């Protein structure tokens, strides 16, 4: 498919043609005698799709508005010669259908820009058609061009290519409640029971991620929302939001989705969609337990997301899962600092451990493990952990022994000889001996190279505050923040070294040249 517009020489001719096309469209709209212009325009399709799409859009939006294609379905008993009017309408409608196919086809082929334009054109035509139906509406109820939406969705959920950008464009019409509702209505019929293609799953999840089903409370608001995509002018009956129907559709879709096999990438995406969009609307969320339990065993973000799901089940649906803290405990590995989900993990674990009725040994193990992690963590994460540990100490007064041991002095050598009695390798937080230890790691952080950490780590020396530390703002910070903050610090007098170097070597404490031979070859 040689795209003419891409060729360098074609740009001028394309301009010409787009101008010509616009002119032809104008002529077509002014008088019927230029009706054949439409044929000309369509013949240009392959050469300049983009401008054709735009022209077609203007033509048919206008035509639909005028109701030029409106056909009274009169049941005539006599088979009479169709009038020229009717013949023209029929001719026009045939071309209209043909064009729809072309538009839909161009959503798959051609350049991304053309694809996007095709989608936009399709959506506009659909909206216009909804406002001005081609045929009389049977029950005078709300009319939605369902037959147009379905092929669009089918194209979006293509099993061949990733349609993320198209889906995000499609998202624009999701804001209209009618469009949202009918999309949901449409989806179950498009979801296969069998294992579909990966890309299809990805597209579907992407789409569902964009489709936000309102919560029960917002239901009324939605039905009162007069801002509809297809608001027929003559329709007396308004669109009614059917929450139950939408939920049913969602459950149907999800029932299919749950049976599919997933790659880790999709698994993660699925969990995100599940947690953010689907979970609140599921009829029997407890059914997810098995799925989540399986996901829990996976490492990294999947496990974490599953954990969040389990947490929701535990808190909202009375699921009992005693090992959840062990699971959470095992998630704190040095690797987390290099994942995108660490903020979520910290947020979640703050939530998990917010109860003041947890056993002290458990919380102490968390505190100690987190402290241990600071020894390898990047600076910005250390700040989060410090706040977190501070909050844990605040919630559980018994943990004070970690920073202020009742019996001063040296550690008794009862367990595993000298050294820290805390067992980092122990998987069970309750067996990790954390309560026998002290937060020496935080003391070590007091001489961290970053001054803000060093001063933050001093909190263990002072009495704890009465209000918990605010972790939310710290979660968003990155290493760049720290760097910028340090640069922002304005100091009046700048200190300089006071020993004049004679060469690159420092007069005192030179290390670089001790290990590096830089100025000579050998």
């Amino acid at each position, binding site marked *: 498919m040689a795209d003419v517009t891409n060729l360098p020489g074609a740009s001028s001719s394309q301009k010409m043609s787009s101008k010509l096309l616009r002119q032809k469209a104008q002529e077509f709209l002014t008088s019927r005698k230029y009706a054949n212009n439409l044929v000309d325009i369509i013949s240009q399709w392959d050469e300049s799709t983009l401008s054709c799409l735009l022209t077609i859009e203007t033509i048919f939006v206008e035509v639909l508005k005028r109701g030029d294609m409106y056909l009274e379905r009169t049941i005539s008993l006599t088979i009479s010669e169709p009038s020229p009017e009717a013949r023209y309408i029929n001719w026009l409608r045939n071309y209209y259908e043909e064009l729809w196919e072309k538009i839909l086809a161009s959503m798959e082929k051609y350049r991304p820009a053309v694809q996007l334009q095709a989608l936009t054109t399709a959506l506009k035509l659909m909206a216009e058609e909804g406002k001005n139906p081609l045929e009389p509406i049977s029950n005078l109820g709300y009319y939605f061009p369902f037959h147009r939406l379905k092929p669009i969705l089918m194209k979006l959920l293509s099993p061949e290519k990733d349609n993320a950008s198209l889906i995000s464009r499609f998202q624009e019409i999701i804001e209209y409640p009618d469009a949202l509702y009918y999309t949901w209505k449409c989806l179950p019929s498009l979801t296969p029971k069998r294992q579909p293609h990966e890309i299809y799953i990805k597209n579907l999840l992407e789409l569902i991620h964009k489709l936000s089903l309102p919560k029960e409370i917002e239901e009324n608001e939605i039905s009162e929302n007069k801002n509809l995509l297809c608001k027929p002018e003559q329709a007396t009956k308004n669109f009614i939001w059917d929450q139950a129907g939408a939920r049913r559709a969602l459950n149907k879709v999800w029932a299919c989705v749950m049976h599919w096999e997933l790659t880790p990438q999709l698994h993660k995406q699925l969990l995100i969609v599940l947690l953010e969009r689907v979970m609140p609307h599921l009829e029997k969320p407890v059914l997810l337990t098995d799925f989540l339990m399986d996901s829990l065993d996976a490492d990294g973000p999947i496990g974490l997301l599953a954990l969040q799901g389990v947490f929701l089940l535990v808190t909202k649906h009375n699921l009992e899962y005693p090992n959840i803290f062990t699971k959470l405990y095992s998630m704190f590995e*040095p*690797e987390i*600092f*290099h994942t995108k989900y660490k903020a979520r993990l910290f947020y979640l674990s703050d939530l998990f451990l917010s109860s003041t009725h947890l056993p002290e040994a458990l919380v102490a193990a968390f505190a100690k493990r987190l402290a*241990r992690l600071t*020894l*390898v*963590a*990047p600076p910005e994460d250390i700040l989060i952990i410090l706040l977190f540990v501070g909050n844990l100490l605040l919630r559980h007064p018994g943990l004070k022994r*970690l920073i*202020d*041991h009742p019996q*001063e*002095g040296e550690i008794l050598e009862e367990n595993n*000889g*000298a*050294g*820290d009695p805390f067992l980092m390798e122990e998987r069970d937080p309750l067996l990790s001996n954390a309560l026998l230890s002290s*937060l*020496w790691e935080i003391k*070590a*952080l007091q*001489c*961290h*190279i*970053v*001054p803000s950490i*060093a*001063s933050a780590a001093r909190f*263990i*020396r002072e*009495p704890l505050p009465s209000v918990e530390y605010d972790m939310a703002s710290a979660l968003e910070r990155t*290493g*760049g923040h*720290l760097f910028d903050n*340090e*640069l922002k*610090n304005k100091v009046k007098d*700048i*200190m*300089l*070294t*006071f020993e*004049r*170097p*004679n*060469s*690159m070597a*420092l007069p005192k*404490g030179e*290390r*670089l*040249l*001790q*290990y*590096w*031979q*830089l100025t000579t*070859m*050998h």
Partner: protein
Amino acid sequence: MVKIKKKLLSEISQEKRSQEKKKSLNPFEVHINRDKQNVLGRKSKADKGLPGVSRAKAIKKRKDTLLQEYKLKHKSNLFLDRRIGEKNSFMNEEDKALARFTAERMKAHKKKNIYNLNDEEVLTHRGQTLEEIEKFDDPKSDDEYSDDENGSGKLNNKFVNEAHFGGGVLSKSESGKSRKDLIDELIAESKKRKAERQKIREQTIDLTEKLDSEWRDLLPIVSAANKNVEETIVHAKTDDYDIAVRELKFEAKGTPSDKLKSEEEIVKEEKEKLEALEADRVARMKGLINTNNGIKHKSADDLDDGFTLEIINDEILVNDDKENSIKNAQEGSSNEDTSDIIDKGNDNNSGDDDDDNDKDNLILNNDEETTDKQVNATKVNGIIRKEKSVENSNEEISESESSNEDNLSDLKEIESSSEEENELNKSNMTINLKQQKIKNDLLKRKKIMENARKELPYTFEVPESFAELQEILQNYNADCQSIIVDRIIKCNHWSLNNTNKEKLSNLFLFLLQHINDHAMEDDIESVIKGFQIIDRLCPFLYDLAHLNPQNASSVTQEIIKEKHKDFEKNKRKYPDLDTLVFFKLVSLLFPTSDFRHPVTTPSLIFMSQILFRCRIKNKVDISKGLFICTLILEYTTLSKRFAPSVINFLRGIVYISTPKHLIQGINIIPPFKTIGESSNLLILDEDQTNLDIDPSSIHMKASDLVDGPLDDDFRIRALLIAVNLLGEFKNHLEELEAAYSIFEPILKLLKLNSFNKYPLSVTKHIKRLRKNLKELKNKKLEYIVVEKKKPKPLRLYEPRIEAVYDSKKHKPMSKEKAEREKLLHKYKKEMKGAMREIRRDRAFLAKLQIKQQIKNDEERKRKVKEIFGEAAIQQSELKKLKRKK
């Protein structure tokens, strides 16, 4: 008894008199203000007053001033009596005259013309002006007349006796001269004497004049006799040089300043200054840590009033002790082998030509012979010293000086070495070697520099733009560049011109840019050249930074910011060399040990970000990582701070040099990867057991920063450097309780690997580190305990006693506010006083006017009455006349 009574009486009378004086006040004039409350010890200023007296005083004053003004109101002329003492009633006529005369004299003394120095009153002595006397033209002393009695021109004693008092009955009147004769005789006599005296006087004058002239003739001959020889030589010698010297000698010299400091003083001052700076640095390093941490000793009586005993800083004392002890030690050693010293002394002295020294020698030798070497060694030494000090003090002084210097240098050496000993126990040797090497290097460089110096032009303008600087520096090597920069700075020293400071500040920026542009990693030569440029330019950058610290820091900050921005664009890639070299520069220009510093802290954060984020893919990445690790080590050597990023990186280095089959199940933290090619980068290809390597003197090389194939040599070196760095960091952090936890993962890795393929020395070296790390585990840990808060002392309700009680409550306020408050108060007081005065003035004037008015009215009435009276008389007279008619 009588005496006592007398005394008593006199005293009583005295008291009485004084009381009388006091009592001269009319008791009715005194007004007493009674206090409502009598406060003991308070002195009231206004307890009594003399209203009448003070009013009279005020009225009198008004009469003198206000009244006079009032009288002269609306009058343009006024008559002033300026005669001296005219208005003063206490002066009598004589005083006035005297005062006027004095004033006249004073006026005469005042110089009319300040430029005419001679316009002074002429002083006289015996009628002659002093000037005349000072000429000594005619120095006729009184003595000339004293020997003969008649010198004064008066009549002879005898003659007077006879002529004036010789009458009477008893006297012999044989002469029988008449009175007239007698008088004639008397006159003749006196005339004759006068003439004689005149004659003698003239003679002496002639004689002295003659003598004077003769003496003058003789004078040149006498002086010539003295000077004859010298003068000829001097005349011969005066040449240009001498003239120049004289000129220099008499040229205006600098203003007097403090006395020149001796070398010792200078050294001492320098040392003190450095110590102060060091103390300052340590304070900054601790940041806020120790402000409230230091556990101070508290006595049981501490009232918690914030009063603390000053800690006496006896550092200097300690130093002195040290010095002393060193001296003693030296002396001790010298005592032990005095003979040695004596021999030395002999050697020294024999070289000298002085006779004294030879004598000395003899004595010394004698002593040596006679005294028992071992027993009396010290004595000998003492004697020798004494004798020396007496006989050739010069030598002694010079010797002592040199010995002092020695001591100082010794001290320094000891200090530095002790520090180093603390810091690196093992690598001492290498450092020494290194120093030696550096010294050699420096010497060599000096030679090159000398050569270069000769070739280059001597003056340079400060480049206005970077392009200009490039032009200047383009074709020279690093040494020449440094000289050029040196000359630029010297030619445009900031003390010469005000604008130079700004120009040189710009130069700082340009130099950094220059360094930036030369820090390329294309090939080994360019890398080395880049580093050489830095190496040579460092001192000048240091100078320029000190010239304008504000500028230096902002410029460096900007550069680091820019580099960081570039880094943020691609966070997984190690930044180029031009970023890394700036970290080194920062450590040279700014103190790295500060708790928080506007330049070094961002650099540190930047470096740790690099270590945390960047992927290790090839040889260059490893070298750059190690480079940064070394730099962080350098940054933290003094402050001993903890950088997780470095430990993490070094752990990664150890990991990637360990065969994976040994360490299955052990995970590594990103940026290192457990699997893939990059996790095996440093595993040796071949058996290198036979390679001979000294692990403590191993170096990374500039060539490692250039991309190339990985070879076993590099692998061994990288691992060794990592191990060495780990050793240093371990030394830094071993005081922390969490030290074992920090190094545990590394220890685990080292334990599992047996390093079979590595040379034996390397394996040993690594084992040593392993052992050291293992020892950390055995450290006794102490529980963290929050510092006990000092118990709040009981409140003591004692009266608060103020040292100076002035009955006023002083609000605590700022100095400026207090000052303002004070001024306002004063203003109010003054305003009140002024208003009162004005009011009284008005009353005074009103009274005066009304008096005047009354007086005028009375006058008028009187006049009217008079006129009426006169008119009545006239009328009556008229009536009388009419009646008469």
